[in-house]
């Protein structure tokens, strides 16, 4: 059932595929190295870079369309990275139906967001550096999706993590931004652990980490190893895609500038986990446990994200919760197996449009209200910011799955597929759809309708054209994306292992499940209007709220759990070890090291103690090794 493509050598435009990555990479390097010289025009070159990459990718896409479906996988070898006898790792690019869609999404949405950023960051003194980081991100993300093996993919994987770290903490003068950046970086490393372990296993088992070799060899993998690799890949995906239990960093990541949230933390980077799972379909095929794990993680996250989305007042955090939730849908689809792959990618693409659209819309709102993010200070913005309102509204209709908007097609497929595979998950996904409708309605009502609750001195106004034109482009994508792709994407992705869907037209088939879904969504919208639309919204968040809201406001206590479960014990352990390690240090310095200001005598006295202690530790070490040797003989 699962067919794998044997990649063919690159010719024609495909030989220049490396330019797709090289252009933004070179521009990023130029802007960083030349520094202030490029302050005046840097953002223009930086905006042209992803556009140029997009054009090349588009030509490659058209070429790919012209090929017969069985030869739509082109490998463009660049050079041998390192070789070791029978195994070698090449730096090579793989252009196939899956990767080209990602490249188009990254460079397409990326270009639009670059244009938007010209306006959004106009007043920032470090605009050039911002654009350099954005280009760096684009280059790394393209390496991630164009790599033809897992190790090169890992390089891109780390690269996007680094770029994301730099961009989250871009406004480093805010301590919260710096802390958020660090948190994202460290939590992502936990996920990287999984990816590295998976790569090692592949190298040991197949002697190669290339997708082709893994696809071909996966069927020979024992169940135990396949399950191990599957769960390690899932761990990696959880870290990058902010899935439970590694979800906590995404909400903090909203400290970054809003275009960053739109590009990295909604449309592209956070979907890398879904890409990884779909790309590794051959592995998951052989491990039902890991596959089920993916589906469960996705389902739990889609509910957790929605829950968080319901209880936040910060417009960006609502959108962040909703991002987690929507990626949960994609993971759920990916966890269903080949039947869900096309739907996962489909939803990923439509989500890329409507979520980027809404994030940029939120940025536009913030731009007009003096960088406020608290929805309780908004209200009635539909008149002050008509274009933002209309485009945001289209995004809203898309995400709740209003008929004929893009999310309607992609999300319905996932719910339907989930019902077929595992009815329990299907029901939960259906509930998630209702909750999504509820909190998105809340967001719309609190932001654009009702009474104006603007803070004194704030005069909301529409953003400049350089910002609203991108909004319009994305809104168009959010509207028609589903209709355009619906009949096509299943067949297009079939060569990479996805099962072609049966819906072959833009006109959806009417099923009982589709009707039920619509009813649930309508109920969510009605409830949202019932709670938030009928009476004025208090300008200050009420204290007396239900326990459910409280839990949601605290991100389901994700931080606290990690703090008490991991960070505090870790720090305590560190302090303990440090103390044991540096016995004899004046307790007043709290075991933190050398007593710099102490007078010579005191230092000398302390040092005498030191050597003795050190000698004792050595002696203990000798005894321990001796004991270990004795034990090794006894067992």
């Amino acid at each position, binding site marked *: 059932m699962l067919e794998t493509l044997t990649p063919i050598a690159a010719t024609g435009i495909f030989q220049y595929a490396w330019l797709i990555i090289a252009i933004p990479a070179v521009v990023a390097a130029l802007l960083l190295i030349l520094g202030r010289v490029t302050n005046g025009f840097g953002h223009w070159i930086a905006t042209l870079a992803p556009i140029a990459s997009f054009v090349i990718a588009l030509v490659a896409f058209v070429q790919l369309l012209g090929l017969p479906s069985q030869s739509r996988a082109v490998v463009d070898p660049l050079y041998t990275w390192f070789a070791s006898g029978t195994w070698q790792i090449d730096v090579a690019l793989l252009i196939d139906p899956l990767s080209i869609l990602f490249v188009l999404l990254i460079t397409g949405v990326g270009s639009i967001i670059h244009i938007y950023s010209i306006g959004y960051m106009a007043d920032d003194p470090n605009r050039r550096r911002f654009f350099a980081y954005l280009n760096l991100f684009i280059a790394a993300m393209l390496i991630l999706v164009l790599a033809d093996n897992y190790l090169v993919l890992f390089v891109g994987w780390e690269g996007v993590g680094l770029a994301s770290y730099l961009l989250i903490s871009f406004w480093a003068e805010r301590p919260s931004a710096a802390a958020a950046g660090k948190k994202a970086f460290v939590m992502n490393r936990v996920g990287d652990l999984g990816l*590295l372990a998976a790569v090692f296993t592949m190298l040991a088992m197949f002697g190669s980490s290339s997708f082709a070799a893994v696809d071909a060899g996966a069927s020979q993998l024992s169940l135990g190893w396949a399950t191990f690799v599957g769960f390690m890949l899932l761990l990696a995906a959880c870290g990058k895609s902010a899935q439970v239990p590694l979800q906590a960093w995404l909400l903090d990541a909203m400290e970054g500038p809003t275009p960053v949230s739109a590009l990295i933390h909604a449309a592209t980077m956070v979907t890398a986990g879904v890409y990884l799972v779909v790309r590794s379909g051959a592995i998951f095929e052989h491990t039902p446990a890991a596959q089920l794990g993916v589906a469960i993680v996705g389902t739990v996250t889609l509910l957790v994200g929605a829950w968080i989305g319901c209880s936040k007042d910060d417009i960006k955090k609502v959108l962040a919760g909703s991002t987690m939730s929507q990626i949960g849908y994609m993971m759920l689809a990916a966890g269903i197996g080949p039947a869900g792959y096309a739907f996962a990618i489909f939803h990923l693409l439509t989500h890329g449009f409507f979520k980027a659209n809404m994030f940029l819309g939120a940025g536009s709102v913030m731009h007009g209200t003096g960088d406020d993010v608290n929805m309780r200070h908004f209200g009635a913005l539909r008149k002050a910011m008509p274009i933002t309102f209309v485009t945001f509204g289209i995004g809203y209709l898309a995400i709740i799955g209003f008929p004929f908007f893009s999310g309607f097609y992609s999300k319905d497929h996932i719910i339907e597929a989930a019902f077929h595979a595992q009815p329990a998950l299907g029901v939960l996904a259906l509930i998630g759809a209702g909750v999504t409708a509820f909190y998105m309605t809340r967001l719309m009502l609190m932001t654009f309708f009702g009474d104006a609750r603007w803070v004194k001195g704030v005069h909301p106004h529409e953003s400049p054209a350089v910002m609203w034109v991108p909004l319009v482009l994305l809104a168009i994508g959010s509207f028609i994306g589903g209709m355009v792709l619906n009949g096509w994407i299943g067949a297009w992705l079939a060569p990479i292992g996805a099962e072609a869907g049966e819906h072959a037209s833009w006109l959806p088939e009417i099923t009982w499940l589709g009707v039920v879904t619509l009813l649930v969504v309508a109920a969510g919208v009605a409830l949202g209007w019932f709670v938030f639309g009928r009476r004025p919204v208090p300008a200050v968040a009420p204290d007396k709220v239900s326990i459910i809201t409280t839990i949601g406001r605290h991100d389901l206590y994700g931080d606290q759990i990690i703090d008490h479960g991991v960070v505090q014990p870790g720090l305590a352990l560190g302090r303990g070890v440090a103390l044991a390690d540096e016995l004899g240090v004046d307790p007043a310095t709290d075991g933190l090291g050398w007593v710099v200001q102490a007078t010579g005598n005191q230092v000398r006295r302390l040092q005498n103690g030191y050597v003795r202690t050190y000698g004792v530790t050595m002696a203990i070490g000798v005894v321990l090794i001796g004991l270990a040797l004795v034990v090794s003989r006894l067992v």
Partner: protein
Amino acid sequence: MMPMEFTAPTLDYLLLLPFLIVLGAACLGILLEAFLPRRVRFVAQAGLSILGLLAGLVALIWRWGSAGRGGADPTAGSASGAVSGDAYWSAQDGASATLMIDGPVQVLWAILFGCALIAVVFYAERHSHGGATAFTPMAAAIPGSNREAQAAQAGLIHSEVFPLTLFSLSGMALLVAANDLLVMFVAVEILSLPLYVMSGLARHRRLASQEAALKYFLLGAAASAILLFGVALLFGYAGGFGYEKLAFALSFRTGGESLLLAGMGLVAVGLLFKIGAVPFQSWVPDVYQGAPTPVTAFMSVCTKVAAVGALLRLFYVGLGGLRWTWQPILAGIAILTIVVGAIVAINQSDVKRVLAYSSIAHAGFVLVPLVGALTIQSGLPAGQIGSVVAVEFYLVAYGLATIGCFTIISLVRAQGREVTKLSAWAGLGRRNPVIGVTMVIFLLSLAGIPLTAGFIGKFLAFAAAWRGGYQWLALVAILGSVIAVYIYVRVIQVMFFQTPADDEDRAEVVQPGMPALIVLALCLIGTLGLFFVPGPLLDVFQAAGSFLIPSGS
């Protein structure tokens, strides 16, 4: 049975040439120190050391090519034809060579000489010190005394540090080639004694520096005693000092196992002390902090390379037959070292101490592929990257990044003194973006993040352990590297995202002189270059082959 007569050893002087050149340059340095007038001494010594090391490298490269073609001594013909380019130098008789100069030794020599060369150039940096060096004007004067102040005023400079370094380096070169327990012990002493003196030469914080030296000496002496005791026990077991004798006894002798195990444990402790593995690491932070920064750079890299080389040969050649016993014990030590190094580093408030603990953690990481023991003897197919190549590459990546970091530390100053307090580094990266970004690259390499050589190093290291059957160790090591990332991110965080407190001495980067710039450029190019094109270097390492195990063992 053995005739009581002395057989002159057969020496292949050409093969030994690189070692002899370095030793000769060290001796010549002593003469220069005695006879040259004071004002030209520093330049002459620096020049001699640099030329000596370059000549050593040239001789090494020259013999590298010819050793392969010349063909090895037939008695040395290894069991596997896959070993090429090895040569064999024997003393006494063909069955027990005291020194073995084979592929890995040449590679390790190249790493040692290369890193020492970079470190010695770093010694020569004076511009950023206002014409002075990083070393005390008069080591013999009591700290804080008038004599010291007079010496400083007169602009006196200690240039003995150059020959001392070369002596230490020749000990290191001897250590990696030692194929005999006694030679190994002597080599350990040759490398250590100059280091004890060099640690006490710091220009500022004299007391701290002298105490570091004394402490290093006392603990080093204890470690040497332990090592010597172990050597004696192993002699008792094997009836000889040579590694072949040891390997032979392992295969054929029955009984005497307690001698063997105790001896192995004690010798291992002596060498593990040198690389700073837990629980023999306690000297590392104090000595690294107290020693002059260029000396810290030299010893943190070269000592580790030499001692790891010695461990490799001892365990692979001499004690290869006892693999199942030492692998789990070294695995435990590796994990302990990684975890203690990484966790304690998190609470440090001094940059040099952070790097010292990071260096401890790296000692653990480098043990990981060693434990994997993926060699031709343990079934590695010819031409693949095994433990030896992984260790070698790891050491190169670690060496470049570490020397680079210490060079930058020496440039960060307030009122003419190095400032190593982490809090004083706040915002440094934003005030000096070029130095800041360079430091970030070195730190990321130590952390093992892509775009730097450290990533390839860690990858190969963990892969070797994984393929050698130590999957769990590789997993724990990966987890440890995740913790270790936190150390480096913290320094980056302070450098870029913190604003200095008002009452704090604000550290600034001083204008580096030409030597420091050369060092930084070399380390930076190496760190980035070895990520993008590691292939050529790996090919060279692989072609050099693995340890030569003579017939008869």
